[in-house]
């Protein structure tokens, strides 16, 4: 595809009371511009990724807002697909480069969530699902809880196995200075947290976060050595609500997008060294690893419990070295872009304490709602 990542920038994720969407965007973008060595004037378009600005902040028209804020007066617009907004924005940016309309574009994912009460945010997040789900009072954790229970019924997955996902991701996050959480969690702490929607407990759920992440993408027919390229970008769509799904124990959108991504670049799941997957809830990471076909259905939970996928004890693929959504935080519009940044840093050997040795191929997996949208990107270090 000849798409290279010229530079990246990310703010810390967390409860950033003093930060506004504008200040978050400035920080992430100017870091990305500095990292890329690209002149600000050569950016030809801005793809903004955001879900809740309209509902929470009463502000739409973010393309124009950030173009002005950043002093980059170019074509700019927002892409939204609930929690998959980031992945969708990266995909749209790639399309614009493949069309040869542009050579250099900016993707900015930004979300400001902590100005509002958790009940209000909980309501707003239900916008990712269907009207029927909202009228049933089905919160986002509630919907994933239905998936968790179905998985437990079919494969014997236990709450303790789910909890080990959060333990792993908090351990990884403790090694990531930009992560929301810096403290590791014990299995006992996760198991003792109170139920949000049975069987999912508070510590099975990703947090409410503020943050921004930005990348600069370029079309480069002759990429330089050691650049990081995006070699696959695929989206798949499934039904909006759970009621019309074919399966409750797999996200078919993930399956389809992953299959198409691997086929498009001739890579197998076993070639991937490092993956950032969409762990909005612990069960979501189990489903992701299964549905991307990294491992067999029904076997991932046990492997997770035994210490696989971890930086320290994993034997193969490392999952969510950034801390994932659970440990690093989940400012919705920023997550999909942050995932790209983590893989970019891993492939460049810049991750210090959480560096995966000899990482050459990475994958990002970004999901919208309960699996209505799934976006897969595969990144490669160019020799």
């Amino acid at each position, binding site marked *: 595809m000849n798409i290279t990542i010229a530079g990246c920038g990310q703010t810390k994720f967390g409860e950033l009371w003093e930060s506004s969407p504008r200040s978050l965007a400035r920080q992430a973008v100017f870091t990305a511009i500095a990292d890329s060595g690209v002149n600000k004037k050569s950016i030809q378009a801005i793809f903004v990724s955001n879900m809740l600005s309209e509902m929470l902040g009463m502000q739409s028209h973010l393309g124009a807002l950030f173009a002005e804020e950043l002093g980059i007066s170019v074509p700019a617009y927002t892409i939204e697909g609930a929690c998959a907004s980031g992945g969708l924005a990266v995909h749209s940016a790639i399309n614009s480069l493949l069309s040869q309309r542009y050579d250099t574009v900016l993707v900015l994912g930004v979300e400001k969530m902590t100005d509002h009460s958790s009940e209000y945010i*909980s309501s707003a997040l*239900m916008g990712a699902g269907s009207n029927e789900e909202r009228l049933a009072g089905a919160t986002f954790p509630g919907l994933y809880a239905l998936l968790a229970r*179905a998985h437990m019924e079919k494969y014997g997955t236990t709450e303790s196995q789910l909890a080990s996902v959060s333990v792993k991701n908090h351990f990884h996050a403790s090694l990531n200075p930009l992560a929301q959480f810096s403290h590791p969690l014990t299995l006992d702490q996760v198991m003792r947290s109170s139920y*949000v929607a049975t*069987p999912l407990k508070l510590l099975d759920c990703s947090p409410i976060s503020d943050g921004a992440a930005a990348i600069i993408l370029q079309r480069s027919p002759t990429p330089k050595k050691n650049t990081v390229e995006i070699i696959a970008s695929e989206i798949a769509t499934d039904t909006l609500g759970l009621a019309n799904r074919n399966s*409750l124990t797999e996200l078919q959108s993930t399956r389809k997008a992953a299959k198409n991504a691997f086929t498009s670049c001739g890579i197998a799941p076993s070639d991937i060294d490092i993956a950032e997957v969409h762990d909005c809830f612990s069960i979501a990471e189990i489903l992701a690893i299964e549905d991307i076909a990294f491992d067999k259905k029904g076997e991932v939970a046990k492997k997770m419990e035994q210490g696989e996928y971890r930086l320290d004890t994993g034997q193969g693929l490392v999952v969510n070295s950034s801390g994932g959504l659970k440990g690093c935080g989940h400012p919705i519009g920023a997550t999909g872009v942050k995932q790209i940044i983590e893989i970019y840093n891993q492939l460049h050997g810049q991750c210090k304490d959480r560096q995966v040795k000899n990482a050459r191929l990475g994958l990002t997996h970004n999901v919208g709602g309960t699996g209505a949208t799934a976006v897969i990107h595969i990144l490669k270090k160019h020799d």
Partner: protein
Amino acid sequence: MISPIKVWRNQKKYAQQIGKVGTIISWTIINISPEGFIDQSPYPIALIKLSDGTNTLAQIVDWEEKHLRKNQPVIATIRRTQEVAPDEVIAYGIKFKPLD
């Protein structure tokens, strides 16, 4: 503020749903509920397979622990759904009761 027109448009399909039976596919008890559902909480929601082969997602009411299981038969009825302000139009919708 829930639009009364949206309430009206949504309610048109409910008359046909009353009395429909189905079975529970998966369920959860929501302990932390969003605005509009706080007074009702905690409450179970379930994915239900209806006898006509389609699925629906709805709240379960008049329940005991023993009813929250896969394959539990349930029947559709009308209840108030979202809590609204005293000067707003009342939102009615479909919820499901266990069938013993």
